[in-house]
């Protein structure tokens, strides 16, 4: 399992390859890539700054991956979340899950993203032409996490 909170970009292909290359039991890798959008709630976004709570972030992410492992067959997983200042179209987050079959890989990947959105202490601030603003939490993210009935 790899969990990383980093300012640096990551190599999607290298990260996904690392999940299956040394393990012939892996039959499926599901991956999710989250990107910076250039528009949010009708306003243009020039840059996005990500703040986090060092220490708690890593702990929360490890717990989410552990919860997924208890629920599905997860042979390996990688979770990378970037912090600092990012521009539109830059990757923010990667979740990749390796399993024997696609069902477990898809479900665990979505579960990890849903809980990352609602439990991991990251905060986004957008720079728009009208100035800076903190992004508000969305009710729909809470509903997405709630449907797993943890």
């Amino acid at each position: 399992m790899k969990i990383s909170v980093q300012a640096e970009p990551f190599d999607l292909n290298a990260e996904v390859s690392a999940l299956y290359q040394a393990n012939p039991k892996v039959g499926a890798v599901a991956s999710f890539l989250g990107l910076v959008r250039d528009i949010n709630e009708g306003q243009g976004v020039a840059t996005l700054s990500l703040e986090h709570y060092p220490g708690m972030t890593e702990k929360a992410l490890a717990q989410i991956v552990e919860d997924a492992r208890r629920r599905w067959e997860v042979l390996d997983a990688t979770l990378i979340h970037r912090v600092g200042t990012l521009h539109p179209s830059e990757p923010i987050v990667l979740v990749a899950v390796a399993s024997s079959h696609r069902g477990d890989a898809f479900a665990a990947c979505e579960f990890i993203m849903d809980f990352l959105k609602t439990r991991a202490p990251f905060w986004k601030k957008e720079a728009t032409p009208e100035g800076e603003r903190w992004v508000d939490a969305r009710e729909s993210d809470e509903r997405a996490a709630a449907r797993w009935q943890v």
Partner: protein
Amino acid sequence: MKVRLLYFARLREVFATSQETPELPPNIQTVASLLNWLRQRGGVWAEELAAGRAYRVAINQDLATQEAVLHENDEVAVFPLVTGG
């Protein structure tokens, strides 16, 4: 009792501080009483931590409820709802 208080994101900006280590009065034993104590500072503290406002509290890097009990040297963080991913 001394605790380390941390503030993040919008609350860090509004409170104009990222951390403090106050000596708490003896009657402050839980998260709920700590929040009340902070609200008594008035102004943005009373406004942002008012009942009904959405924020979270963590003790030693685990999310905590209002009833959670504080201990000497705990790290207590107060922050807005998270927006990562």
